[in-house]
């Protein structure tokens, strides 16, 4: 493994780890405050118990997200010093605002976790709300920095120098809105389905059914609504990418030949040597329509781009298929949930709960796959059409050891957090309601 590959793998691995924790840390506070509000309104102790157990989850995930985020803020520079030297000043604004939002979140979380019975009830609830809002705000802001890598703006690139820097314009780059919307909805979908799945498992096992049903309903409502809205945001993203990064779109669809009225491939195995896709389902003209809103529009194929600026097609294509496939599945199941609210007998059927148990990890798999699409799809560029990833990597050799260290450390952390969560649920099931 050469230095560049090791650095890229380390970045991918740590980002993938961080994203899971950051998403849970930013979405779970909303579940928590809904339960908290219900406790304040109904004084039903089940809701208090639920709020308190969710807050422990929030604390554990927040810290894991925070430390892995701190690590990332260093890693950007440690792994990609050349990138940060030039990009740092340009994309400083989203990062400094993100830092501020994150800080607000930490302060509010301090109030929330330690404020029970100590600060006024209403104020206490609002600090919980601030945790959620500032968490989402920092997520949206940090995506702006990634959007800038896809749609560099706010500077003039003259003779290899970045001149006339305008940080505000860089913050408001054209990729920001679609990416941030897509990511926020994805975070709600993934976390909603994951948390709902965990509680569905407890209902399936007939443990504290009343409590877990309440928990399930809160979590899945967020997840289902987001899953139903997600295709709209996906459509915006696709049209945006078609315009700005046609080569990424072509890689997502494994679309080699430039064509008018291009077909959409579903599934299929990419043969990158022969430049064709086998065993696919073909929907005529659909790609042209999805990308440009016109059944006969011309979609540029990969063959029209020079070899050295093409991303790895199979990886991008498969990741895209996984994301869209799971997204569609979760949309359908989201609708199933809303129908089940009218047909209460479904809730008596254990297979209904088993369905949600099976779906629990899928949202996060789709979310990771989506990041693979956008990150691998941008290669070989670190800044689209400006700087290549290989020119940004640290000159320090031996990055492979650093990569292994992070793999070991984060694997241990992932196991530890899962184990702690299992213990939380066990203790929740074993204690009697007061």
């Amino acid at each position, binding site marked *: 493994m050469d230095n560049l590959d090791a650095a890229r793998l380390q970045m991918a691995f740590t980002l993938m780890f961080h994203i899971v924790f950051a998403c849970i840390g930013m979405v779970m506070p909303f579940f928590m405050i809904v339960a908290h509000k219900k406790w304040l309104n109904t004084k039903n102790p089940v809701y208090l118990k639920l709020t308190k157990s969710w807050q422990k989850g929030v604390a554990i995930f927040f810290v894991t997200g925070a*430390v892995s985020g701190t690590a990332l803020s260093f890693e950007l520079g440690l792994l990609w010093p050349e990138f*940060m030297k030039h990009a740092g000043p340009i994309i400083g604004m989203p990062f400094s605002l993100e830092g501020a939002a994150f800080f607000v979140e930490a302060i509010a979380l301090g109030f929330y976790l330690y404020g029970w019975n100590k600060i006024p009830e209403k104020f206490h609830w609002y600090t919980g709300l601030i945790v959620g809002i500032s968490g989402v705000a920092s997520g949206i802001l940090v995506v702006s920095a990634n959007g800038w890598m896809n749609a560099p703006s706010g500077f003039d690139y003259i003779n290899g120098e970045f001149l006339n820097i305008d940080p505000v314009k860089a913050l408001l780059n054209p990729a920001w809105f679609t990416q941030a919307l897509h990511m926020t909805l994805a975070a709600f979908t993934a976390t909603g389905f994951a948390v709902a799945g965990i509680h569905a498992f407890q209902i399936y096992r007939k443990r504290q059914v009343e409590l877990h049903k309440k928990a399930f309903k809160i979590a899945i409502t967020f997840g289902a609504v987001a899953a139903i809205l997600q295709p709209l945001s996906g459509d915006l993203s696709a049209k945006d990418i078609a315009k700005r990064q046609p080569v990424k779109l072509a890689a997502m669809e494994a679309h080699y030949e430039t064509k008018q009225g291009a077909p959409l491939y579903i599934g299929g195995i990419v043969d990158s040597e022969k430049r064709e896709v086998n065993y696919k389902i073909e929907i005529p003209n659909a790609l042209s329509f999805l990308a440009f809103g016109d059944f006969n529009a011309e979609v540029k194929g990969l063959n029209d781009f020079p070899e050295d600026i093409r991303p790895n097609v199979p990886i991008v294509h498969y990741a895209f298929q996984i994301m869209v496939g799971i997204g569609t599945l979760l949309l359908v199941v989201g609708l199933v949930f809303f129908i089940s609210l009218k047909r209460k007998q479904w809730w008596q059927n254990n297979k209904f709960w088993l369905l949600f148990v099976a779906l629990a990890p899928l949202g996060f798999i789709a979310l990771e796959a989506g990041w693979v699409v956008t990150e691998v799809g941008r290669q070989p560029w670190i800044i689209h059409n400006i700087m290549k990833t290989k020119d940004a990597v640290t000159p320090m050799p031996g990055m492979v050891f650093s990569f292994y260290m992070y793999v070991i450390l984060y694997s241990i952390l992932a196991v530890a957090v899962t184990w702690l969560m299992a213990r939380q649920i066990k203790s929740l099931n074993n204690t009697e309601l007061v």
Partner: protein
Amino acid sequence: MLYVVLFFLMVSLLLYVLLAGADFGAGIIELFSSRQNRANTKKKIYRVIGPVWEANHIWIIIVIVILWVGFPNFYNVLMIYLHIPLTLILLGITIRGVSFVFRHYDAYKDKSQKLYDWMFRLGSLVTPIFLGMTFGAMIGGQIEVNSDMNNATFYELFIKSWLNTFSILVGLFFTSLCAFLAAILLIGEAKTERKLYVKRARNANVIVIIIGFIVLIYGFLNNISFVTDFIKNPFSIGLVALSGLLIYPLTYNIKKVRRIKSRFLAGTQVVLILCAAMVTHFPHLIISSSSTINLLESVAAPKVISVLGISLIIGGLIILPGVYHLFKSFKMIKILEKF
């Protein structure tokens, strides 16, 4: 605007050293306590830093972001040549952070607590050592910035600058400062064992002075330019002397059980020592083997600085009152609990 940015950079750095330093120190004090005192100290640490420690550690992110946005070349040198110690700091921060939460939020308090406790204590010890070593490397004059990468060995480029006696001494010095801060902080929380923490604070203080002298003598004998300049610089010496004089009001206030005042005085002492170190070479904050790197010469474009300054002012207006209220609320609560 540059001065606004510099102001926030220095304030964030000082706050990180003070607040996170006291957090690290708390773990160190726990590590060096006898078995029966450990459980007690653990409870106190949870009470005194539990609500605030996450906020305390975000200051380092602010420092990093200001550096990369405002001073990209300066940041670039740090990130390339001090890659290894910075990674070790991250490792320490990660282990310490998660073990703190694990030990207080695990649903069952069983044998696994022992593991969390040791992770927390050791993480608290090694992180400030590596932080200090990184600082030692910045001022130690052994970073080979201008050399051709192909002509130097891995050791010369990436290890020698931070893994040497001077850097290790600076690391130990910073670690003992952390322990000193934490001991003063914990005195305020103690009811029955005040004497114990007073003793710890005194020990830590003695160690700070001894290691401080060793750093200066070692640096002087080995002709480390930072140290020779430090000794010659009247401001640096003056600030250190002032910091030393503050020991008298500090002991007086500890005797009189004035916790806020004694914490404030101890904090001021540490700030003075840091300022003394900063002022020696400012703005040449990195001293490499062949030259110095001027913080003010690697400033980003004026527009970037002005936007950064505005962002920091807005962020500061939101954050600083929040931090203040967080600290105040939980101190108020503790005082109310006593009655």
